[in-house]
């Protein structure tokens, strides 16, 4: 197969775009696409201070790389979760982020949850009722809190995450199966900030996961191939596989599902208050971060309970 632009040997064929490209042209195409979406959805501009949440995976490191190549000023945030799972998952992903930052002369902020909060995510999960023994609930809660805190304390304008089209479509599919209209109303390339919540953007939201993986490969980015051990059997992966089977029969199906959703959402098809958090936010009595209920936020309540049980068990 030949590159459509120069006729050299193609390294990737994107059936959804009817486009095959060679290595160099593919490496130009990805940042061009990302810039198009950054501008189209008004994510940020040349003067914005951007914080990129990096996990050591292909998407977040690829995003950090692309933002740098486009000339944006972006610092990285790595959150150490303390997950081992026999493969040293957290330690290895942190090394990948640090190596990337060093090689590119970029600033990486590292927050180690065990150091700051007193326990790793798996330990915390085992000491709370939240998530019924699975660490993902505590993990998600903690990551959202830390990302918001670091972004606000550091005076960043925006938090960028590496979510790709497949991530977005899997979440959309799950929320649609549940008719979670409140979540549907808030899903999109940009989540506006308000009352102390940092603005969140996803510059890769229209790039197929296959494209972001190929970008990391062709660009030679050293990323972590291993999954978080707790992701095994995750519903989101099941959805992704299901959607990929549909995509195989109808190339472009994932993208058109997402774009049709964005249009419907823009036309006001989903009501914000139908479920999920309501409008008014108040400051948490302990940490000051915004929360929906008066008193302590879910993060502070959960971690206070974890530390109390830790004291009892020693």
């Amino acid at each position, binding site marked *: *197969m030949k590159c459509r632009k120069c006729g050299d040997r193609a*390294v*990737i*064929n994107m*059936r959804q775009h009817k486009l*095959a490209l060679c*290595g160099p042209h593919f490496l130009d195409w990805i940042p061009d696409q990302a810039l198009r979406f950054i501008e189209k959805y008004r994510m940020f501009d040349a003067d914005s201070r951007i914080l990129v*949440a990096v*996990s*050591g*995976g292909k*998407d*977040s490191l690829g995003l950090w790389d692309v933002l740098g190549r486009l000339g944006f000023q972006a610092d990285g945030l790595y959150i150490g979760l303390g997950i081992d799972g026999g493969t040293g998952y957290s330690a290895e*992903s942190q090394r990948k982020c640090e190596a990337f930052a060093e090689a590119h002369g970029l600033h990486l902020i590292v927050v180690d949850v065990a150091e700051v909060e007193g326990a790793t995510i798996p330990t915390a999960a085992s000491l709370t009722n939240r998530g019924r023994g*699975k660490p*993902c*609930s505590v993990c*998600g809660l903690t*990551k*959202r809190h830390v*990302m918001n805190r670091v972004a606000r304390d550091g005076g960043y304008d925006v938090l960028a*995450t590496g*979510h790709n089209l*497949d*991530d977005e479509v*899997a*979440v959309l599919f*799950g*929320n649609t199966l*549940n008719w*979670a209209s409140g*979540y549907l109303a*808030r*899903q999109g390339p940009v*989540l506006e900030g308000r009352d102390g919540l940092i603005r969140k953007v996803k510059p890769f939201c229209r790039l197929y*996961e*296959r494209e972001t*993986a*190929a970008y990391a*490969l*062709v660009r030679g980015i050293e990323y*972590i*191939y291993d*999954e*978080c*051990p*707790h*992701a*095994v059997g*995750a*519903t*989101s*992966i099941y959805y*992704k*596989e299901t959607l*990929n*089977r549909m*995509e*195989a029969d109808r190339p472009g199906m994932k993208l058109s599902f997402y774009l049709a959703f964005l249009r419907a959402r823009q036309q006001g098809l989903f009501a914000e208050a139908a479920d*999920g958090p309501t409008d008014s936010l108040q400051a948490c009595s302990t940490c000051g971060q915004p929360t929906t209920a008066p008193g302590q936020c879910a993060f502070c309540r959960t971690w206070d309970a974890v530390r109390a049980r830790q004291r009892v068990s020693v």
Partner: protein
Amino acid sequence: MTVTLRLRDKDYEVRAGMTIRDALLQIGIEPDSVLPTRQGELITEDEILQEGEHIRLVSVISGGSLPSDPLGLGMRR
């Protein structure tokens, strides 16, 4: 007589002479879910498998590194 396709730690043996796409379908791997590489170089799935070569397949799907909760069915964000 054979070609080895490796995905993570698993090896699959197929016959040389067919396209990567056909080989993937034969061993039950969705072609879009992997990226085939030959000697570290990404290649397209219409390439013909050569006698005795090793093709490394890089998995495209991830889920655990998302900065949000992949298990929550009430998938927020």
